[in-house]
């Protein structure tokens, strides 16, 4: 996916004026936010779990090399193969090679964000493979040729009407001649279409919610069961996963699963939680003949060695975006790449470049709501502020902003001068605004007055009045 993050501002303004999107985003607040809150009310050990999750993941990251090697050894023992990719391009090449070596024609995919991150669908289709997304939301987006707008609910921005149109347009050729409008009829039609794709697919691809070092297993959670079918029916299974998905033990994965669904969708547990370990073995009745894992770095080693390391704890629940007042107004597409919201505003600059994604760390009020709901306690506001510091150091922010900051700081470090200047200016401003109590326009404050009035100041500054009253000071 070509990043479009430099147009965040224009994207966002457009999104604010899309009524369908705005209605969908309201539903997110009512659904996921309320659901999560209900879940945690019934979980008195929530804080203790968060603490444990944070420490297990910190320990894992501290020893990531060892756990990855342990994981690889267990996968190989189970008869699987592990491939290492440092870049998205390497990852794509590995997947294509596996598919070609297997003489595959069609690929069925379970929803995975790493698949979006490495752009696997375009690569597979470009190489002539037939690709089908099997998660309902992702399937809808595949038909509409759109990227996901949420990491858990990828098609949250689509209305039922739009989905009816998409199905009608694309399913007629498959013998479905009626435009359906009923929700369950639409689901049933998608199920019929997808069922044959599952049965026909040569390769099943999924991501991984966790990789377990002690067992060599990968874990996926879904609510549709499409992940299970993707990894059990086709003869070749490919798991693409980022290196930060590994956890030491089965016990650790179970503990994190307790946080994941609650934080994501407000469920205690997802409908399906699937553990797979290696290919089919005697006496298995089904399962893939080949089992491949592609472990992808894509800048994560860099992050591991930087102040952004806590971001690697992320378990992709989406709670940060569900609770983000900015995401909740502008939706996922505004962010211009694969990962939206607070977590995306940290990851995107790292993965596509701070110059391309320069808006994202700044398009945040640092209100901190994301951090309070993050199940693994990632200090998202601090990380975003850290990226702003990188921008400042690399001089990626505008010259005028730097100049203004410098000038302001110069005066602010000279309290007598500061008080002299403000002592002169504020009474004038107060006099100008006395009648109406506000300014609807103000030179140099166009960003403010574009959407709201600027209240007029009261009069003399506090410092000036305090000195006049002869009160103590030093």
């Amino acid at each position: 996916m070509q990043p479009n993050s430099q147009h965040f501002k224009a994207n966002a303004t457009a999104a604010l004026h899309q009524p369908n999107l705005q209605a969908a985003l309201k539903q997110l607040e009512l659904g996921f936010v309320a659901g999560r809150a209900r879940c945690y009310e019934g979980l008195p050990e929530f804080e203790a779990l968060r603490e444990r999750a944070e420490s297990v993941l910190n320990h894992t990251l501290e020893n990531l090399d060892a756990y990855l090697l342990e994981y690889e050894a267990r996968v190989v023992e189970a008869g699987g193969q592990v491939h290492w990719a440092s870049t998205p391009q390497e990852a794509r090449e590995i997947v294509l090679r596996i598919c070609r070596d297997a003489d595959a024609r069609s690929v069925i995919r379970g929803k995975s964000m790493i698949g979006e991150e490495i752009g696997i669908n375009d690569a597979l289709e470009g190489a002539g493979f037939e690709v089908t997304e099997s998660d309902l939301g992702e399937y809808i987006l595949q038909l509409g040729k759109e990227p996901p707008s949420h990491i858990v609910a990828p098609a949250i921005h689509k209305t039922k009407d739009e989905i009816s149109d998409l199905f009608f347009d694309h399913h007629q050729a498959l013998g479905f001649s009626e435009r359906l409008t009923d929700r369950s009829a639409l689901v049933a039609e998608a199920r019929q279409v997808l069922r044959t794709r599952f049965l026909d697919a040569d390769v099943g691809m999924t991501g991984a919610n966790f990789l377990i070092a002690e067992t060599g297993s990968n874990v996926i959670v879904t609510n549709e069961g499409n992940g299970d079918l993707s990894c059990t029916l086709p003869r070749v299974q490919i798991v693409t996963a980022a290196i930060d998905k590994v956890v030491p033990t089965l016990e650790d994965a179970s503990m994190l699963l307790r946080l994941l669904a609650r934080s994501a969708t407000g469920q205690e547990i997802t409908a399906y939680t699937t553990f797979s370990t290696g290919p089919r073995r005697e006496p298995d009745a089904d399962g893939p003949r080949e089992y491949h894992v592609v472990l992808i770095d894509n800048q994560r080693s860099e992050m591991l060695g930087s102040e952004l390391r806590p971001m690697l704890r992320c378990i992709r629940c989406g709670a940060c975006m569900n609770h983000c007042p900015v995401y909740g107004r502008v939706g996922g597409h505004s962010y211009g790449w694969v990962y939206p919201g607070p977590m995306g505003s940290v990851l995107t600059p790292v993965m596509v470049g701070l110059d391309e994604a320069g808006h994202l760390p700044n398009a945040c009020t640092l209100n901190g709501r994301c951090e309070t709901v993050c199940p693994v306690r990632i200090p998202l506001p601090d990380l975003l502020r850290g990226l702003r510091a990188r921008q400042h150091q690399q001089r990626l922010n505008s010259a005028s902003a730097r100049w203004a900051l410098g000038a302001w700081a110069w005066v602010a470090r000279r309290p007598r001068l500061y008080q002299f200047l403000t002592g002169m200016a504020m009474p004038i401003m107060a006099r100008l605004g006395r009648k109406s109590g506000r300014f609807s326009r103000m030179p140099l404050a166009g960003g403010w007055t574009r959407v709201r009035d600027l209240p007029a100041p009261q009069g003399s500054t506090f410092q000036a009045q305090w000195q006049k009253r002869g009160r103590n000071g030093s």
Partner: protein
Amino acid sequence: MNSPNPSPRVGLFVTCLVDLYRPNVGFAAVKLLEDAGCRVEVPRAQTCCGQPAYNSGDNEHARQLALQVLEAFEDFDYVVGPSGSCLGMIRCHYPDLFADDAGLKPRFDALCGKTHELMSFLVDVMQVETVDASFSGRVTYHDSCSSLREHAVKAQPRQLLASVDGLELSELEGTDVCCGFGGTFCVKYPDISGRMAADKVAAVEASGADTLLAGDLGCLLNLAGKLRREGKSQRVYHVAEVLAGMTDIKSIGEGER
């Protein structure tokens, strides 16, 4: 908590917005602190806490301003001010800015330990339970993000407001959601900020209150500006002004009556 020093020496961190825009809030803070038994001083060598620089990634200027605050305030028993945001900068972020400075870090840690947002200080430290004030009207209260999340201020202002004669509190729907101010965010991303403020204004309307209160002037200027732009009549005050009984002046953004 140990029983407090009955008359601690408090350095008032006025905050630049209060200094420039709404001195009445500063005087209200002084009154509340003095009523609680504090000896209040206002160091003249204060301007801004440095948050605009810090949140813009300009840590060097932020450190310089932090040092200025340290030197002006470290001798006081407490540093208190009418803002969760600015006092949160001192309390939560100064120590991070000097994490690698073995000489200064302990001094900033000490400063951090005695720095409090006003509502939290009055209730949690000075154990004030009631105030002597009256205000006739139905108010609603917006929890500023920094007061809520950096100082755990939620019950304290409500407890004090409950003792104000004639005041009725009507809770704001979504009170823990940001109003869209966000420092430089509000001018860098006015359209998003404006929508957030508009949603907050709608919640104020829905609360049925005739007056909006909060503990941070940034939020209040944003929301007063949005209320005025939309032609709404709700009055806007800093919570300290109401608690000190100092609402005899025009509310924020209000014109001549």
